[in-house]
């Protein structure tokens, strides 16, 4: 019976019907959902490739794929995970869906641009798929010259694909900046913005400033390949190290494109599930901006052994450390938020705690890599591989999963099974540490990355790591199952199952087409848990125990 109720109630999912109503929609929520499916598809592909990589590495000799195929596998795994999954991931899915809701807007500033960004994403991914099927790419996701300027394969169509994907990223970025500047609901001052909005705002700044440089870099790479213009290829009078400057000018800031929105989600989740006012709102907000700006000054830390000048290495190392401090500020503030909270251990909170644990390790190992002399030893070993999986998978993906579970009931109006969800957290957490902690040890022992085979001494560690990766795979398999189940069959939820105070929770689940019945008037902060509590979709004020007058009332309209 309850199920029917949900279907009867009008929402963005059922207000219009048919495939066309999706493909031509301008509704940011639907675009978010379309991104969800597209991006999850590529996450799955990238993940399956990762499992093949691990399978191959169980033993030093060839098991399933030869050296060339292996090289293509990690290249595609890296490129897909970065450009098709994690960079667009949180902004395009959760940002699209929830940013307008959280600031009380009816839509993003440029809905048509938003839809265009989805199509551009698809176009870019078609190029990527085309390249995979036509000769593939074996350059590593970094496309270092001169290897990339004379290897065979579909380097040009792949880079072109990534070039196109860049536009999608830029469109999203422009949209978010303008939306946050111009479409906040009345009363939503800058310092009442939810921290997720600050996170996406900082992300959007990076997207706008860095992505064009990736674009021109890849264009130059293509020109180098076809015309030998002499910028990167030493045979034509160019300098391969210069390519690395170009590439990392984008790709270092890009790692903060990945992490900042995840940090935004973690701020939301920790506050909500501790039912406590977020500690240090302003430091957290400003540290996002700080990270965004400083992130442009550190790219050279990927090049400490590349033959760049010692002066540059020194500057880049110093600035690298400065990025650690704002990240630390966030971590400490989250800890202080939990202190004396009223903490519940729902699935999103478990992911948030996993985030703290794993990102902590990833971040501190980043500091090791930033130290010049230590990086000389660790560069291009599995230590780096472990570092970036800890920050990307352990950081961003955990943040992403926290967000996915936190907002899933809002997106679909239905709840997943807490039992299976909690089990999955444990499976993924354990599998993840098995897979990648071993890689730290391999790295410090000197195991270079991008190796199809290796010296025998690393065999036990590699095997252990591979077992871990299959456990992760299992975890995701269970997750896919219960989330899909929840989408259609889950128990309907009310407006606000978690008792959160941000605006997306005052509208119905799933929200209807225009987000809110009427534009909300914002008077409370997003984290005023010291004086507001939500029980059974009722906003209870500590000093005036009446229902929150305005937005929380059900109204039938449209």
């Amino acid at each position, binding site marked *: 019976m309850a199920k029917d109720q949900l279907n009867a109630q009008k929402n963005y999912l059922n207000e219009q019907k048919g495939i066309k109503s999706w493909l031509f929609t301008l509704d940011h929520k639907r675009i978010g959902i379309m991104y969800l499916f597209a991006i999850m598809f590529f996450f799955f592909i990238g993940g399956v490739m990762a499992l093949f990589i691990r399978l191959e590495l169980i033993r030093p000799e060839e098991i399933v794929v030869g050296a060339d195929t292996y090289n293509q596998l990690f290249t595609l795994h890296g490129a897909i995970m970065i450009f098709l999954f994690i960079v667009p991931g949180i902004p395009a899915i959760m940002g699209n869906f929830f940013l307008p809701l959280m600031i009380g*807007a*009816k*839509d*993003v*500033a*440029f*809905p048509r*641009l938003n839809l265009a960004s989805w199509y551009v994403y698809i176009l870019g991914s078609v190029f990527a798929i085309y390249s995979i099927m036509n000769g593939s790419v074996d350059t590593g996701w970094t496309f270092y010259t001169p290897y990339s300027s004379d290897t065979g394969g579909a380097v040009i169509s792949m880079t072109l694909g990534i070039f196109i994907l860049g536009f999608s990223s*830029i469109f999203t*970025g*422009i*949209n978010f*900046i*303008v939306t946050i*500047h*111009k*479409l906040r609901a009345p009363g939503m001052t800058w310092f009442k913005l939810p921290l997720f909005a600050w996170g996406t705002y900082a992300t959007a700044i990076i997207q*706008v*400033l*860095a*992505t*064009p*440089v990736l*674009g*021109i*870099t890849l264009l*130059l790479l293509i*020109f*180098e390949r076809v*015309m*030998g*213009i*002499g*910028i990167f290829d030493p045979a*034509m*009078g*160019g*300098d391969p190290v*210069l390519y690395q*400057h*170009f590439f990392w000018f984008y790709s270092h800031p890009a790692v903060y494109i990945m992490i900042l929105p995840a940090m935004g989600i973690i701020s939301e989740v920790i506050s909500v599930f501790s039912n406590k006012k977020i500690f240090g709102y302003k430091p957290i907000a400003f540290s996002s901006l700080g990270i965004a700006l400083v992130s442009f000054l550190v790219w050279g830390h990927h090049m400490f052994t590349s033959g760049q000048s010692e002066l540059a290495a020194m500057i880049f190392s110093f600035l690298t450390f400065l990025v650690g401090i704002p990240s630390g500020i966030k971590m400490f503030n989250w800890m202080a938020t939990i202190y004396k909270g009223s903490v519940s251990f729902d699935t999103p909170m478990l992911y948030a705690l996993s985030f703290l644990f794993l990102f902590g390790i990833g971040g501190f190992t980043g500091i090791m890599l930033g130290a010049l002399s230590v990086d000389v030893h660790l560069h291009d070993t599995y230590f780096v591989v472990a570092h970036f999986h800890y920050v990307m998978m352990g950081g961003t993906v955990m943040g992403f999963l926290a967000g996915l579970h936190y907002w899933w009931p809002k997106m679909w109006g239905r709840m997943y099974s807490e039992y299976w969800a909690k089990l999955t957290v444990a499976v993924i957490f354990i599998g993840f540490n098995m897979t990648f902690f071993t890689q730290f040890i391999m790295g410090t022992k000197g195991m270079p990355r991008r190796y199809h085979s290796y010296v025998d001494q690393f065999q036990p560690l590699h095997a252990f790591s591979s077992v871990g990766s299959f456990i992760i795979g299992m975890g995701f398999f269970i997750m896919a199952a219960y989330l899909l189940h929840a989408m259609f069959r889950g128990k309907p939820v009310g407006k606000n199952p978690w008792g959160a105070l941000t605006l997306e929770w005052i509208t119905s689940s799933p929200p209807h087409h*225009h987000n809110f019945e009427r*534009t909300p008037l914002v008077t409370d902060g997003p984290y005023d848990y010291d004086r507001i509590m939500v029980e059974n979709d009722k906003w209870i004020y500590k000093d005036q125990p009446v229902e929150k007058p305005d937005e929380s009332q059900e109204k039938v309209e449209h």
Partner: protein
Amino acid sequence: MEHTGDHPKFLAHHFSEASQQQESAKLGMWIFLVTEVLLFSGLFVFYAIFRAWHPDMFINAHVHLNVYLGTLNTFVLITSSLTVALAIRGLQLKKNKQAIWLLIMTLIFAAIFLVVKYFEYSHKFHLGQLPGKFYSFDGIVGTNPHVFFSVYFLLTGLHGVHVIAGMIVIGYVLLRTIKGHFSAEYYTPVENAGLYWHLVDLVWIFLFPLLYLIG
């Protein structure tokens, strides 16, 4: 729907006021211009690094560019920038006819720019002063002169692509002006097209001395 009464036709449903929509569009445009500047930045870095490495070669090579044609094109672009600016002024003052003519003039100047560029290019093609491995001119002393022509063609080529894109955008707003879509209350698309065009001009203002005057 909610939009009732005095809501102007051009106002999208998710904005509450015309000024909000206009400011949003302009903000979006400015951010877009930022991405354009950074797109060019890569080529400026290319230029800066190689010029610093091979200053003599750059100086020897740049004399092969035609300063007069470059100067002419500078005048042409500045004029076209002026005409767009005046076209917007025309709309503000409700002189739509004038605006239309000024936009047409802008297009004409843009075309002149391209024609001049065409002559410059074909001359270089003829001499074999081509980028990268197609370079076959000898007569420039210095290390790797083909790199200078790579930078030259990439910078002016990317700029040329922007000129063409700008012409399309201006053509589009011109059509809409003719159709009477714009008024003194609403002319944001024209303004944005203008901004784009000024950026094209701005880039050229830097390209011109860097390539033609000092190499």
